[in-house]
């Protein structure tokens, strides 16, 4: 009998000692809460280790790599067309937008210009994939905060856009439609008129989202003033896209960098918001979706005629050299640093993805925040796991 109790005593004392050690560094025994790797709030498999004091977060450390597929190593052992199929699976919501910077980098090294019609169609599909990506965000933001109905409307109206992408490219959202020097094939008959009507539907969807979620008082109390990111901190961490425009910086690669795509020929506007909080990020993305539908309408009006493929040798060999091309993807600035030595495949491809930098600010922005706000801030930063882990 006594042996048993002595064993229990030793275990008890051991437990106390361990407990004391933990408390030593913290005056209160903080609780470590593990959000993820499987968690409805994180879009996929991001794990965040948070030390809590009651409901407040003392420190948050994201753990990644659960979706790391080693893209940069795989691109070194593949030829250019094979890489093209691989990279549109990085940011799987707007997959056409992943192909464009890589193709532009290769074209810059090969000094080939795609004919104007191809550039215009590329811009149209770029904006279509932006709409497909951000409409899901508008619905998802509602679900993260508890309004279940919003995401169903998002999925319903996103289907129309996917139909248009599939009609022209064959894939719902992994089109693999871009080629070095142009596009795979031209648009099917009647596609332009159909896309016009889909754009009108997306605009109605945006208005619906604005009334259902945007101007909802509880949504505003949950997001206004939460997760405020000033501009300098955003610049230091390399945030891009709607996250930095929501902090007030008027910077959009579509207008500011000299991409050969057709944004210059269209009249559109870059939306910014001075607050920099979660609501601002949601609001900027909502306006960007509307703006994207207007861009597509104008592009469809002025679509030039002509060939869609420049003269390209059948076996593509990019001459030796290095090129960096970045475009304004729906999530932010996505760029490829292509190093080629004249082989069938590139020598080294550095893939700069927007979500990687967007999430690197999480430890800074989550300090001293309530647990429910962790979800709001993560939802408003809007990252895709494939983008972070490559």
């Amino acid at each position, binding site marked *: 009998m006594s042996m048993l109790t002595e064993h229990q005593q030793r275990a008890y004392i051991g437990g106390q000692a361990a407990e004391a050690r933990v408390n030593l560094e913290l005056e209160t025994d903080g609780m470590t809460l593990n959000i993820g790797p499987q968690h409805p709030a994180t879009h996929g498999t991001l794990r965040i280790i948070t030390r809590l004091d009651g409901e407040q977060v003392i420190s948050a450390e994201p753990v990644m790599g659960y979706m790391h597929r080693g893209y940069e190593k795989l691109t070194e052992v593949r030829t250019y067309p094979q890489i093209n199929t691989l990279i549109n699976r990085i940011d799987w919501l707007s997959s056409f937008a992943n192909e464009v910077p890589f193709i532009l980098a290769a074209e810059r090294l090969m000094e080939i210009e795609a004919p104007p019609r191809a550039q215009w169609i590329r811009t149209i599909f770029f904006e279509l994939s932006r709409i497909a990506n951000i409409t899901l965000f508008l619905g998802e933001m509602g679900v993260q905060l508890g309004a279940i109905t919003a995401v169903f409307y998002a999925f319903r109206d996103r289907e129309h856009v996917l139909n248009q992408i599939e009609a022209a490219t064959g894939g719902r959202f992994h089109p693999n439609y871009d080629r070095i020097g142009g596009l795979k094939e031209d648009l099917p008959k009647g596609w332009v008129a159909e896309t016009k009507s889909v754009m009108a539907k997306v605009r109605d969807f945006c208005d619906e989202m604005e009334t259902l979620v945007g101007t909802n008082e509880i949504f505003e109390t949950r997001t206004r003033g939460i997760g405020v990111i000033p*501009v300098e901190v955003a610049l230091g961490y390399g945030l891009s896209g709607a996250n930095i425009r929501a902090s007030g910086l008027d910077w959009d690669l579509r207008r500011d960098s000299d991409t050969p795509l057709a944004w210059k020929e269209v009249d559109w506007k870059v939306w910014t918001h001075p607050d920099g909080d979660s609501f601002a990020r949601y609001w900027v993305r909502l306006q960007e979706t509307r703006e994207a539908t207007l861009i597509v309408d104008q592009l469809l009006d*002025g679509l030039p005629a002509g060939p869609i493929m420049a003269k390209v040798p059948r076996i593509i060999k990019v001459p030796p*050299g290095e090129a960096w091309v970045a475009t304004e993807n729906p999530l932010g600035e996505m760029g490829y640093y292509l*190093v080629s030595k004249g082989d*069938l495949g590139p020598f080294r491809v*550095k893939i700069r993805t927007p979500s990687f930098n967007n999430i690197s600010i999480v430890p800074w922005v989550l300090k001293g925040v309530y647990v429910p706000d962790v979800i709001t801030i993560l939802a408003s930063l809007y990252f895709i796991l494939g983008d972070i882990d490559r």
Partner: protein
Amino acid sequence: MSSAEPGAGDDPARRPSLPAEEVTDPTLRAEVDNPADANVPTGAEAAPGGGTSAADAPPLPAAGAPAELSSEQTPPQGQQRGAAGPDQGLADVAGGDAGSPESSGHTGTDPPVPAAPANPPPVQGGATVPEQPPATPRAVAAEGALARQAKAEQADQAAEAAAGAGLGEEPDPGLDQPRRDLVERLGTALDGGVLDVHIVPGVDVWVRVGIDHWHRAFEVCRHHLGLTYFDFLSAIDWLPSPFGRSEDTGTDEDAGADDRAAGPGGPGELEHGVTGGSTRFQLLARLVSPTSHLGLTLKADVDDVELRAPTVSDLYPGADWHERETWEMYGIDFVGHPNLVHLYLPGAFEGHPLRKDFPLLAREVKPWPGLVDVEAMPGEAEAASS
């Protein structure tokens, strides 16, 4: 809205359907009415002086050059449009700039589309292609606003650039004044640290610095050159892959072989890219100025033996994760990094995957199942017709 003149599109619903009064929040309404003023930079560099952005874009499409050729030589073929896209409105406002000639396709991808009506509209285009949009596309509101905004970006940077542009000397092809200024001022600040520079006018600029000047270069870029935006940091392993290109099929093998025979030597030979280099591992980083949109790519050779580099996460907090990833993938140790632990790979992963000599086991066991010998197309000689 201060947009200069409406673009080709004529539909009145140009502005988003968000009527002003629906926007209740005053800050929002201010935002909707005049976007350019709303982005009062809080502490960040003010929008650049008119001079910089105008000067940044030489009106004439400058010569794009492949890496090897020195930047002055004009490209053999294919007009590389270089101008960063000032348009009619901007040029007038900036004044003094050699106004872009009426027909210059500053953003035209192909030779500027002639003002004559375009060739017959494609069949499925449905509506006839409207008359070719006026040669000068609408001045983008924000860019115009940027030019008008007189605040100097950084006392020395703006003055220097404005002085350069003000001279109004004849813009010869290949001159890319803002990027040259950037490199000169970096060179003076590092006094000798800059080992090699490569400028592709109007496109990009590479600078290779010594590894001991690496931290100083970042400091200068951040505090003096206004490159406050941290883009990325990574590394390149210049050792040619000992596993060869298992992708090449039969026909490509011989095509590839003779190139390699003529080109750089076998696997042992290190052949570096744009700004040269001597060691196997080379650090690569890119910084951008969020206002003048100038990007600078920094490179530095890492000594092969001790593989060590100073960390820059104290200057740019974003570098923290990039350096962890580079350490994990290449094994380059970053001195002074707060917590250099695995980022992507599970703890027990040994080896550095992105090194060229790291084998991809699945490929060694069985080459790509889809390896079909690509038979030559009939009439291989003439290129595939468009």
